[in-house]
């Protein structure tokens, strides 16, 4: 099964880059013998661009920041499905102001007959600050990074 691990976000925007930081950590744990069927990458924008990255893969593990305003503590780890993205609050980066949402883009990909992943695991970390430039996440989000990294590795 060809698997893509994508960390989404901006690593210099405090908590926003939590997904990217997890992806780096996953890559480091797998090195130097990253299995041939696994690709680890980062991405900064959702919509079509993100869908295009996924073409040809069977499974995707997506790590992103989320702000649900549901009273969850910062650093809370959400495990979501694609249906959740369709129906509940999207994660921070799964959509792009410049084009469309990931879900719409994936539907478009399927409609065009492209080989799109059928298995999706979305891990989203409840974040506190995505408005200030900094390469250091807030403490609660920083604590979540090794936990999410372990979760991703266990899912492989």
């Amino acid at each position, binding site marked *: 099964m060809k698997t893509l691990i994508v960390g989404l976000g901006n690593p210099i925007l405090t908590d926003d880059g939590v997904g990217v930081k997890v992806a780096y950590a996953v890559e480091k744990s797998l090195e130097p013998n990253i299995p041939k069927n696994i690709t680890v990458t980062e991405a900064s924008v959702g919509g079509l661009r993100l869908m295009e990255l996924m073409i040809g893969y069977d499974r995707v593990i997506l790590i992103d920041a989320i702000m649900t305003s549901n009273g969850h503590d910062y650093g809370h780890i959400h495990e979501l499905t694609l249906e959740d993205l369709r129906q509940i609050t999207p994660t921070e980066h799964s959509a792009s102001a410049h084009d469309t949402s990931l879900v*719409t883009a994936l539907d478009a990909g399927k409609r*065009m007959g492209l080989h799109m992943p059928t298995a999706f695991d979305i891990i989203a970390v409840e974040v506190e600050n995505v408005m200030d430039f900094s390469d250091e996440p807030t403490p609660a989000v920083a604590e979540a990074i090794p936990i999410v990294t372990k979760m991703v590795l266990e899912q492989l």
Partner: protein
Amino acid sequence: MKQKITIDPITRLEGHGKIEIFLDEEGEVENAYLQIPELRGFEQFCVDRPAEEMPRITNRICGVCPEAHHMAGTKALDALFDVEPSSAVKKVRELFYQAFYCTDHTVHFYALGGPDFVLGPDSDPAERNILGVIHKVGVDIGMEVINCRKRNHHVIKMLGGRGIHPVAGLPGGWSVSVTEEMRVEIEQIARENVAFAEFSLKLFDDVVLANQDYVDLIVSDAFTHKTYYMGTVDENNQINFYDGMIRVVDPEGKEFIKYHPKDYAEHIAERVEPWTYLKFPYLKAVGWKGFEDGIDSGVYCATPLSRLNATDGMPTPKAQAHYERFYETLGSKKVDGRYQPVHHRLATHWARLIELLYAAERMLELATDPEITEPNLRVAVKTTPTEGIGSVEAPRGTLTHHYKTDENGILTMVNLVVGTTNNYAPIAMSVKKAAQSLITKGTVITEGLLNTIEMAFRNYDPCMSCATHSLPGQMPLEVTIKDADGEVVANLSQFVEK
């Protein structure tokens, strides 16, 4: 940093595009604006870092156009270290940059702006997206869009050194040289881009221009503003995305001013209003006269439409033919040898496709230029740095990077004027006019208000990623209407989680 005046405390907006409309005592629209969350502390983040890191830091600001920030940052380093890039360096950079334009303009037309026309302005917002476009015009066209983006992302990766955040820019140079094998591949890609751009213009003809209702909508007063227009031009006053002088034409089409990008601060000032934290750039020499149309108001616009209005023509033959057709079709007359500006904001979508064709043609010219395979694209830096300014035309408007350093090249000051910022005042005016068409004497016609407002600002392709980083869903939109006492009289929304 200037003081930021804020009336309503801006809480995290969950990334919503939020519109605020203010009514006067009579219940008429007094002001309106698109609220764009503003990120904080970029200058502080950069200060004390080595300047040469800037092209790699600034391309992280925005997920949508890292290539534009990388290029403006690289050009600011040219100036900072006082190294003039060779003609081969400029050509390789421009080749990279045209590939970026081919991806960016394509996605706006097919995924964001085009659906308004392809599916119709009154269609269900849930279907007014790329999926709806594919449904209407066919799966094959969807694949053309994906393939266009794929082949140009391949070029960006080859020439930029990385796929998402390019790293090839050096002071005075470029770290990737083009081999003959790469050149052959890029030439083929450019040819496919030209064909795709021509196809897209044909689609615009068939779907939009052949429909009188759409043409009437484009030229309607509700979507028209007579402002100044800004764009970068070459020595022949023709459009250039990568380099040149900044030219501003007045609403009648006469050249108002032409300046070197390094002099931006002499010509552009920012207006602060008490009701928003956005700062509205305007032309210093004209002055701020409010959110007003006309030759006496310093409001200017920097978009694909602006660039066409600011140029005397397109440097490539096919784009030039479409440029002439654009002005002739929209009723512009030639005065003193140049077309009078088109002021219809919805024509920006058409202008964007003409720019797409220019980018493709120029890419082909560069890919077949004998100098493009020059292997030596680096120069030694010998000057002690002090200050540098670089600018490019980003797809959403003129983008300027300004850095100051100490004698060791460590940053002491950073200022960026990003593409969308130029258009804050025109966007506010367009939103206001759209709101005025449906709000009179305190009566709000809610039906169609969201659609009309969306169309009014979408043509600017406002990229909030420079100011903020993301938006969820399908452009969630929230409109708040407040009366003269600041009381909320209506709230409208779509795609907003409650």
